[in-house]
């Protein structure tokens, strides 16, 4: 199972859970499941998120494959100067 | 529109143009003569990107009317190299990576040339104060100051370079 955490503001969207476990093989599957299960997450994901997988940041890639023990962190969409 | 007819010399070339009374020399250079090497960064004499030399004196072309060019000798960045031979400052700016975006570079080169024509052995402080009217936002000035000091050193070593670079075109 993939461990998924979200940034602080969205913790309430996960209905109080600090971290949840999902059966997902890619970032896309993680985001799809979050959207399906948590309406508040769905809104945030539609506005754009960046995802860190095992310490590496993915700005907007969703096809990234996950290992069964991957740690996934969902963050606001990043911009730069 | 009422136009003023002006005869002048630009980089050694006799040049005539017509302009309106409120046009600056910078407007004339860029929009009427196609000499877009001089840049407008502020239009108020605060950034030096439009620096040119008029009768041997460094000025902001945005703070001079086109009409005032009558009978003057004007040098711009376009006249700095002698054909394919770069002025030593131009070469040193390249060697020292003294430019990033490059939009302030023409102004710095013209201003630095004016400095070295007056003072062939400036201190770092003199370079910094002379160039204080030329704003650069990319480099933090470090490599620009080094390039100017290094050019001065090289020009002192070989006065020949200096002469070649300073050679004026014979008027037609």
């Amino acid at each position: 199972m993939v461990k998924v955490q979200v940034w602080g503001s969205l913790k309430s969207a996960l209905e109080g859970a600090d971290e949840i476990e999902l059966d997902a093989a890619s970032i896309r599957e993680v985001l799809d499941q979050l959207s399906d299960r948590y309406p508040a997450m769905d809104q945030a994901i539609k506005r754009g998120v960046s995802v860190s997988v095992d310490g590496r940041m993915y700005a907007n890639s969703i096809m990234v494959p996950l290992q069964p023990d991957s740690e996934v962190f969902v963050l606001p969409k990043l911009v730069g100067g | 529109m009422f136009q003023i007819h002006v005869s002048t010399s630009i980089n050694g070339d006799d040049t005539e143009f017509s302009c309106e009374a409120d046009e600056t020399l910078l407007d004339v250079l860029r929009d009427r003569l196609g000499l877009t090497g001089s840049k407008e960064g502020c239009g108020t004499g605060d950034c030096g990107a439009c620096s040119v030399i008029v009768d041997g004196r460094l000025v902001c072309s945005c703070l001079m009317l086109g009409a005032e060019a009558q009978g003057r000798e004007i040098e711009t960045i376009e006249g700095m190299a002698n054909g394919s031979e770069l002025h030593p400052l131009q070469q040193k700016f390249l060697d020292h990576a003294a430019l990033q975006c490059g939009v302030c570079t023409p102004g710095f080169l013209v201003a630095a040339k004016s400095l070295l024509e007056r003072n062939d052995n400036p201190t770092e402080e003199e370079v910094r104060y002379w160039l204080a009217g030329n704003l650069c936002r990319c480099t933090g000035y470090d490599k620009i100051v080094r390039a100017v000091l290094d050019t001065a050193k090289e020009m002192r070593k070989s006065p020949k370079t200096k002469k070649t670079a300073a050679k004026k075109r014979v008027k037609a």
Partner: protein
Amino acid sequence: MNVISGRIPLQYHAPATLKDAVNLLANSKGKTQILAGGTDLLVRMRTGFSEPDNIIDVKHISPMCKISRDGKGFSIGAAVSSAEMSENAALLKAWPGVVEAAALIGSTQVQGRATIAGNLCNASPAADSVPAMVAAGARALIRGPKGKRKVAVEKFCKGPGKTVLKKGELVEAILLPEKPARTGDAYLRFIPRTEMDIAVVGAGVCVTLDSKGVCTAARVSLGAIAPTVLLDARAARTLVGTSLDDPALDALAAACSAAARPIDDKRGTKEFRIHVAGVLARRAAIIARDRALGKS
């Protein structure tokens, strides 16, 4: 294209004589501006603060382009740039404070064009060269339809942007006296950067010492702390009769701070200007004293 607004396009004039310039100025319609260095005028035009109908370029009038010296002192033509002033060895030797003040106006590029007469006519309380001219006892030589007149620089400005010039009048030259013996002048200003700023506060000091180093005459001026540059007699009196020692300098600083009646604006606060007016006057007085003693 001016059909709609009805505005007549700007006219540029470059008279060759003072007489022509005065005639043009007296007879022109609409708003007429003198163009010397242009470093204020072109900025005002660019930013929409000034929309003249006529511009009279005075740089073709040869007497206005010269620095001359007779037995009574120096005459600096109104079209002489501050760079030219810096290059004039005699002027620099006599009035280093005035020359240095002129050399503080803007960048190298601006100094190639800017003039102290223009700096004066612009009538900004923060003009760098004005306190220095006031301290040195400079006068403006004014030419108009009725002839010449001379006005002390400290009486030239009536308020921000306002001068004593009447219709048809222009400044022909700035006159500086011959420097009396054992006299030194200095001007200092405060700006947040090292260059390119308008003075937040400025202070000019000119002192004459006797052979024992005691001050016999002093003029102290302050810039950017009132609607016009101030010549402060009380501050000057703190120096007279002293050797400009620490107590005298402290009294000078206190007098200058007391004389300052500045405003808060984007360049500095009231209390900052009041305090720094004293600091600068003190520092300028030391330089002026050392110059009078021939130390620098």
